[in-house]
């Protein structure tokens, strides 16, 4: 078991871009022993995926290994050509990709795709390959494998597609498996099932695995050794327990701190200088609303049916007080986004009513709601900061737009001041205001999205997975910002998320949705610590945990 399988030695990879060569990997050195699972953790742009692609020789045409060696069983992979390389790919090392549905050929039956991989490396008949493919589908625990052989990727769920991808990757029993964010984008419960499967298969077949992920918790759960990458370099390599209890490098410390855990609080996630004026605000006790104050939002028996299908959401009722934060959690397809969109009045409910501040708004058609005076009171922050900003609007225009449309402001000094004020409230540097979205980082775009939403001083902010596309360290800052805004301005937050750790920190109350109905609701910490239903318990258990010892707190 201690045999060295892969040795990456001072690897440099550069990409040629319009602005010249950009170094993505600068001097990575690591080793993988046969049969072990190594975690390669880092944030976006750290070069972890590029390292994986360089090893399997799948870099884009623009990317080139500019220095160093990748020795696989003593053979330098970077020097292989043509047939030699193809004999290695799939047979000796293979890869699992991030977006499983896109990674499979959309117009080829999955059975054929697995058989393609088998036939490339084994001289057997098509029937034999088909039989092997069927065995592989059984090995990755796909139900009704005989029927699924003829299925196309669009007929399968994301988790199923990833199992098929695993089947393809292991089809020729490679010695090394590189899994690049294999469960990003899957639900937590699916993530757990797929990762357990992957770990079992790797262990049973003695495959070494490199798990590339941004999720420290996930790496800690499955790997004995974790290498942390930052800006093209490996900054630290240790066992999970050492990494979490005594991180050596400053970046690791920040990453560990920013990863939300079952016990962390928002203020723990960020470093001292990022905390700004947050602690002072948190320490101020919140004013309890006077007894008998009507709720800000009351949702009664809301239901939504699309076309003739079954209900996407049924019998959904909830209330929210002003300045309260409520989490709406559930897996994909649970109806959480549909519900949030109905409350925002972006889509029309089929049944039920929404009462906001004493006024019924459920029956105002969604396409007319923009004329309602309540439009500016209910605002939304969308999931993808890249997609939800108009690429032809500068940051300034984005924030000014709702002010002009909903507050009726005209271009001029007053508008400028309001925009500047909003930018300051979300901590967006003012010199970024003339920039276009593509000139901003993910975190900066998220700030613009939030600034836009709070520009008209709403009383309810609906957030649809606002941090799902962000790195953990950026997420930490954004979460703190949201909580600060809530406390400063008494904005109620309806937080839609699949990330239970985040909801637990940010929200006073949590509602768990499953198949369009409420399964459980209650005070967040109680709900997560003592789930009453099996479904919630399953969700909570599926979250990868990080055991943080007291030493970490001391280190910070």
């Amino acid at each position, binding site marked *: 078991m201690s045999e060295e399988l892969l040795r990456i030695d001072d690897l440099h990879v550069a990409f040629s871009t319009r602005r010249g060569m950009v170094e993505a990997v600068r001097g990575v050195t690591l080793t993988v022993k046969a049969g072990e699972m190594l975690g390669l953790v880092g944030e976006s742009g750290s070069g972890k995926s590029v390292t994986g692609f360089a090893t399997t020789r799948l870099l884009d045409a623009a990317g080139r290994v500019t220095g160093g060696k990748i020795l696989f069983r003593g053979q330098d992979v970077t020097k292989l050509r043509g047939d030699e390389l193809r004999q290695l790919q799939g047979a000796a090392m*293979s890869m699992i990709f991030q977006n499983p549905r896109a990674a499979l050929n959309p117009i*080829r039956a999955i059975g054929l795709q697995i058989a393609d991989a088998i036939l490339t490396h084994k001289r057997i008949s098509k029937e034999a390959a088909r039989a092997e493919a069927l065995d592989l589908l059984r090995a990755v625990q796909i139900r009704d494998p005989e029927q699924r052989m003829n299925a196309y990727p669009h007929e399968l769920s994301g988790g199923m597609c990833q199992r098929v991808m695993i089947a393809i990757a292991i089809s020729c029993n490679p010695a090394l498996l590189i899994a690049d964010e294999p469960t990003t984008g899957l639900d937590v419960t699916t993530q757990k099932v797929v990762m357990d499967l992957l770990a079992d298969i790797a262990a049973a077949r003695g495959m070494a695995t490199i798990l590339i992920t941004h999720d420290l918790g996930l790496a800690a759960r499955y790997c004995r050794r974790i290498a942390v990458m930052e800006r093209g370099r490996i900054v630290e390599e240790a066992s999970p327990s050492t990494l979490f209890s005594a991180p050596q490098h400053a970046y690791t410390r920040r990453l560990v701190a920013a990863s939300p855990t079952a016990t962390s609080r928002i203020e723990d996630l960020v470093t001292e200088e990022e905390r700004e004026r947050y602690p002072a605000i948190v320490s101020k006790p919140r004013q309890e609303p006077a007894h008998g104050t009507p709720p800000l939002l009351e949702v009664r028996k809301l239901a939504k049916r699309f076309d003739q299908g079954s209900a996407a959401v049924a019998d959904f009722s909830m209330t929210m007080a002003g300045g309260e934060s409520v989490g709406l959690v559930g897996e994909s397809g649970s109806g959480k986004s549909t519900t949030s969109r109905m409350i925002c009045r972006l889509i029309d409910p089929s049944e039920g009513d929404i009462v906001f501040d004493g006024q019924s708004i459920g029956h105002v058609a969604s396409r007319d709601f923009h004329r309602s005076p309540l439009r500016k009171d209910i605002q939304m922050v969308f999931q993808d900061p890249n997609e939800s900003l108009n690429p032809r609007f500068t940051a300034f225009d984005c924030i000014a737009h709702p002010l002009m449309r909903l507050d009726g402001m005209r271009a001029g000094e007053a508008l400028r001041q309001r925009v500047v004020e909003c930018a300051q409230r979300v901590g967006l540097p003012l010199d970024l205001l003339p920039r276009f979205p593509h000139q901003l980082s993910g975190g900066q775009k998220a700030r613009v999205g939030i600034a836009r939403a709070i520009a008209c001083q709403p009383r309810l902010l609906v957030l649809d997975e606002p941090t799902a596309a962000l790195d953990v360290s950026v997420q930490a800052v954004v979460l703190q910002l949201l909580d600060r805004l809530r406390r400063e301005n008494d904005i109620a937050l309806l937080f839609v998320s699949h990330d239970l750790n985040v909801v637990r920190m940010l929200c006073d109350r949590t509602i768990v949705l499953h198949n369009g109905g409420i399964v459980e609701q209650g005070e967040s910490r109680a709900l997560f610590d003592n789930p009453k239903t099996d479904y919630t318990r399953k969700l909570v258990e599926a979250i990868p945990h990080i055991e943080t010892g007291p030493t970490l707190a001391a280190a910070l």
Partner: protein
Amino acid sequence: MMTGLGATVTRAGRRLLSSLPALFGVLVFTFLLMRVLPGDPAVFFASGPNAGKEEIEQIRKQMGLDKSVPEQLVFYLSDIGQGNLGRSMMTGQPVLKDLRERLPASLELTFTALLIALIAAVPLGVIAALRPGSVVDHGVRLFCALGVCVPTFVSGLLLIYVFYYLLGLAPDPTGRIDVFTSLPPQRTGFLLIDFLLAGDVEGWWTACKQLILPAVSMALFVIAPLARITRASMLVSLGSDFVRTARSVGLSWRKVVVTYALRNAILPVITIAGIVFSTMLGANVLVEKVFSWPGVASYALDALLSSDYAPVQGFVLLMASLFVLVNLVVDICYGIADPRVSIE
């Protein structure tokens, strides 16, 4: 599988039904357009330039042109409803018969041209996409640009000049067949097929030689859009995740490029090919003229120039119906090629 077939048939039927209003609109619009265009058919078809006013009136009455336009439209529509497209003043034959005789010639030419174009364009597009920015890529781009810039009648004349006049390889460009070859018994109207059915290889070769030059000059014009769309869609396909997957398990180059990349990339090409086909069918009048090809487009042009209403209206209706039909075929092909389409 049966349900899939049934669904396809239902879908096709629904598509045909939904295109009826558009066809009706085309019908009425063409009718009105012909009435608005300058030129009086009665004058044109009168016995001579000295025909008296009375004679012209007589003809006008005969043709029903003395009635009001709405009345004429009603008569026209009821005729169409009975499958009667009217009679051509030029040929003296029913339009339906004329079109039936000439359509196979046009279809044969267009099909051959499209086939040549696809056989040339898809590999060119694929080669260009495999080496973007290379000499080959630029060569293909230049070739495509030339194909589009040079009008079909110019390239047609050029081809005649080189292959008929200079090299003497091609037969004289006068129609579908030379005067010495006897026509095969008519079954499909497509000469190439009829000759084969009759077992006349020599005749087939003669017809083939006549067909090659006009087909190539038409093909040259449409290679460009087909090659460009192939290249663009192939680039997307080659950069996609599933091609990376295919490469990650070491599939052979051929398998990656053909089975994985090209089969996905060909989908938009099918759509474009359908549009190109419809366009060619109507727009190949210049080629038909240059090569004295007895097709429907040159027939319609002649009719238009002599204010012969019925053939032009019949031609437009035919083109519109063909367009609907071609789109339907493209849709069905698409449904077969892409399993994702059928569930939508």
